[in-house]
């Protein structure tokens, strides 16, 4: 069934709203996986890449509802397909959640993190559109995506801290993953403050939003693959 998504998502290249069919099927697959394993399907690369693709798709629809066929779709849809391909290539984790992950704090932490990542992705897409066409509304859309993403990411981190305090007796650990998570937080904080500096708006700040997504992807995938951390389950 997941293969069908590779046919449905590209329909959005013709018209943005056609992504609804892909999102409906994708949501059903995520729900089915949740029912099958009795847990939120957000463990391991297979689950999380798929959920990230779905979240980007949902954000793409909300922010592009009125858009006709343009580079907004030409950039976002291949990104979604790339993430889906990564999800299919990664092994799926079967079975229930490890006991330490059975808490609402963990579920909220993970869901909000990936929704924030999706918004950061769209922020980067709008940044590229601004660099291509120089339209002010693309810059404003980047700002809105990144502001919302930053708030959700902050809440996700706070929820993660609460969970860690209950699980391990500390809300912060000195590990590469935590440092990179803080790097993401600082980076988008930097972006939001840089926008307020007189004379710094425009291309240079838009670039910060684009680079931010590269940092996000490294924090998500790169740190886990290259460095040992507390986020290995």
């Amino acid at each position: 069934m997941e293969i069908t998504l590779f046919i449905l998502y590209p329909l959005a290249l013709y018209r943005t709203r056609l992504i609804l069919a892909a999102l409906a099927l994708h949501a059903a697959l995520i729900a089915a996986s949740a029912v099958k394993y009795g847990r939120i399907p957000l463990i391991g690369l297979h689950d999380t890449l798929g959920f990230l693709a779905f979240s980007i798709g949902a954000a793409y629809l909300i922010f592009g509802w009125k858009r006709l066929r343009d580079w907004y779709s030409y950039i976002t849809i291949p990104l979604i397909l790339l993430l889906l391909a990564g999800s299919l290539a990664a092994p799926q984790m079967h079975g229930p959640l490890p006991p330490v992950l059975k808490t609402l704090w963990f579920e909220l932490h993970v869901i909000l993190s990936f929704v924030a990542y999706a918004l950061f992705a769209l922020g980067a897409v709008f940044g590229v559109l601004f660099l291509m066409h120089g339209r002010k509304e693309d810059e404003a859309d980047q700002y809105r995506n990144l502001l919302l993403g930053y708030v959700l990411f902050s809440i996700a981190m706070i929820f993660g801290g609460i969970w860690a305090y209950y699980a391990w007796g500390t809300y912060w650990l000195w590990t590469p993953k935590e440092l990179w998570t803080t790097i993401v937080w600082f980076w988008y904080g930097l972006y939001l403050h840089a926008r307020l500096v007189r004379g710094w708006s425009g291309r240079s700040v838009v670039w910060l939003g684009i680079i931010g997504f590269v940092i996000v992807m490294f924090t998500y995938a790169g740190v886990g693959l290259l460095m040992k951390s507390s986020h290995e389950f």
Partner: protein
Amino acid sequence: MKTFFLSLKTTVWTLLALVCLFFIGSSMMPTHREIFGPMNDRLLFHWIGDMASEQVWLTWWFFGALAALVLLTINTIVCSLQAIKGRWSRKDFLLRIAPQVVHMGFLFMLLAHLLGAGWGYKLSGMLAEGMMATGLPENRALYLRELRAEADASGFPRGWSAEVFLYENNQPVKIGSLGPNRPLFYKGMGIYLKSFELQPRPAALLLVAKDPGAIWALAGGILFILGSVTLLVLKWKKA
């Protein structure tokens, strides 16, 4: 000098410096576990005194980050004080106060880290079933009465729990069951079941920790969420 601390550019460059320093730190950590591993096992001030200050060629990024955080703290306080000065009108009250609430939340989080780094305690060790751990801080002792573990048909651990008795001044003061995400709290002290073994005899790896910063971290988190969500709503409309 005041202009420097009041400048948004100071904020931006300091955040960039922190990003660079944390990047360096994250790449050093995996290759020098003997230095950075103990950061999480003991109070940070003790780690700084015993290890970090003697291995400065490996820990310089950490001290650099501390200096940057001090600068960011001063910058945040000065900017917030400046922002709340002057006349207030009902019309832009929320727009003016929300960023300051976010800043206060951030400062509370930093304060939490400072308090947690220097005060409180962290002790961990294996305790066998039926044994008592004496000599805990604040004249307390811990007795592990029973350890239970459940597995599903495939042998996957479904859950585990440890029943403990906490004593203070030789008097039992609290009885509780520890488990995953289920510590036992008493007067700001938390007792955690970190892992366990059933062979050769049932024993639990327990952590006894007191972090006076935790409550500040929670308060900071709540303020940060309140301020940033308010700001989001206001800025969203504006954008």
